[in-house]
């Protein structure tokens, strides 16, 4: 059997060359000749063989460690995926996201139901019996909403400066996208957290809307929300659906092991979340710069709202159908 010393003497040059070649390719600064690059796979296989020999023959730990490290570097070099990011993002927006939404229509429909059914129930109950709002929200919260949407209040008579718009933009991004991420993460426990967030937000919306409608402030409230709500509520529903998908995968793994089911679900769930986050960004923009603008008449806001809702629906139903798989 070849002794370690002789083995090292024979192969040290090959290992050193391979290591330097990898370094040159990784750093991309040092030019490398074509033959050297073409030899790279063969050199990697040679180093793998040497590691196998070293392990089998029981050479010293230091040598095995060194070769292990070299093989790991080679492995990472050859098999790391480098995809151009912008292209992927564009593809996602153009056809990836709508297809994903269509593929996950079951979860998304369930999430819509979970959001809308309690919300509509509460809304109609408030219409019938307005005092119910006081058991669902505190006086202080309701008073602050009333003050915010008062048609003769300062929010609707003075134009808000650009600075205030930007500050609200930042606030909405931090608040809303953060909630989307938390909705997703809290789905991990069987989807319970996501369901709760969806129900909670739906009911909140119904309470505020019902209350303000009862006060007669509908003409300030509905134009405000109709525009950005298309993006924001849909995104929240998607984030909830993604969370539920993840949570349920663990408890109902179907034909896979639980772990494999979780991994499989998380791939599409995280992509759904990307889309939801993107939509929430757009919603924040609309909310900060469009919805709260005093200069835009209510009719225009309604028209824009209708356009956005129908546009989004068309996008999710029809976009990406023609692309060949």
């Amino acid at each position, binding site marked *: 059997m070849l002794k*370690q010393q002789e083995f090292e003497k024979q192969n040290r040059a090959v290992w050193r060359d391979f290591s330097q070649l990898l370094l040159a390719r990784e750093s991309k600064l040092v030019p490398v000749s074509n033959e050297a690059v073409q030899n790279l796979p063969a050199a990697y296989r040679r180093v793998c063989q040497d590691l196998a020999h070293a392990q089998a023959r029981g050479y010293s730990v230091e040598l095995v*460690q060194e070769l292990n*490290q070299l093989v790991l570097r080679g492995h990472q070099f050859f098999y790391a995926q480098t995809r151009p990011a912008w292209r992927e993002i564009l593809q996602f927006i153009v056809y990836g996201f709508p297809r994903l939404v269509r593929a996950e229509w079951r979860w998304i429909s369930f999430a819509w139901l979970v959001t809308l059914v309690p919300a509509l129930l509460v809304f109609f109950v408030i219409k019938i019996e307005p005092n119910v709002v006081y058991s669902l929200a505190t006086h202080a919260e309701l008073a602050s909403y009333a003050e915010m949407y008062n048609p003769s209040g300062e929010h609707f008579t003075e134009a808000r400066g650009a*600075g205030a718009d*930007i500050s609200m933009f930042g606030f909405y991004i931090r608040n809303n996208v953060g909630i989307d991420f938390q909705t997703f*993460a809290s789905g991990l426990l069987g989807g319970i957290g996501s369901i709760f967030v969806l129900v909670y937000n739906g009911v909140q919306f119904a309470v505020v809307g019902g209350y303000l409608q009862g006060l007669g402030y509908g003409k300030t409230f509905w134009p405000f929300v109709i525009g950005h709500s298309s993006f924001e509520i849909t995104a929240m529903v998607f984030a909830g659906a993604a969370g539920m998908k993840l949570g349920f995968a663990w408890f109902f793994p179907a034909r896979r092991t639980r772990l494999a089911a979780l991994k499989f679900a998380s791939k599409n769930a995280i992509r759904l979340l990307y889309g939801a986050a993107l939509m929430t960004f757009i919603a924040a923009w609309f909310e900060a710069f469009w919805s709260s603008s005093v200069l835009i008449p209510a009719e225009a806001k309604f028209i824009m709202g209708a356009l956005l809702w129908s546009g989004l629906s068309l996008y999710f139903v029809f976009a990406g159908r023609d692309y060949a798989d």
Partner: protein
Amino acid sequence: MRLDTLLAIETPEGMDLHLPLAGVFPRLVAWLLDTLLRYLIVVLSSLLCFLFYLLGAWLFSYEKQWGQALAGLWMIALFLIEWFYPVLSEMLLKGRSPGKRALGLLVLREDGRPLSWGASITRNLLRSSNFLFVMATILISTKTHDNGFVVFCLVVIFILLDMIVPCLNQRFQRLGDLAAGTLVVYRQFTLARPPVHRAPAQVLPVPLLLSEQRLLMDFANQTQLSPARTQELASILHPLTEAQSQAQSLNGVAILYGYAATLFGQQKGTKDAETTRI
């Protein structure tokens, strides 16, 4: 009984790559360091925003608008830092955020490949600390937040969730790692070759098994034992080394080093300077 935390990954070439897995406590310390660093960045960026505000207020006359606009940008910055500091620090620093760097850790995918953006985002968004806030909202709205015991239990569960799951897992993966298919390993360094044990090569009196040869070579390479302890261990093999030891008037340790030199490949009688390094 194997005690190593080495994970063997099979590569497409049929090789077994060995990765040393990192346990719960190093990862916890790394996470604490990263959290501290994140707060530091938040403080610094807030200071920076404030300085910009002062600068702008001095240059422009619309102080209020400028302040509000900066506040908005500051909130976006806060959002990015809160949610994306882990992702960015892992991806831009090659899988080793500053906290992990301090502990010598590295994040890889399960098959040994480096992190991708998707994997990094998945594993960092699925932390138990991320849904604590939702749970707090649940507690408050179901009015159980007064019940201290319930709150305590929930907090304990959620903090430990990220510490219990790795311990139940063969690869020390927490929930985010399981979903994203990532591992946290120690970054391996090439071990330094131990100092020279100069000893003339000795012929082995009996053929040895591979494990016994390995043992002798490791014995000759180690640097941690004191000389007295080395002597004590060498005396165990006294029956083996007795004859040669007396013949050459060397002590047992030198004879064992000589065996190791032979196993390494040094020829008996050569004085090649390079070959005395084992």
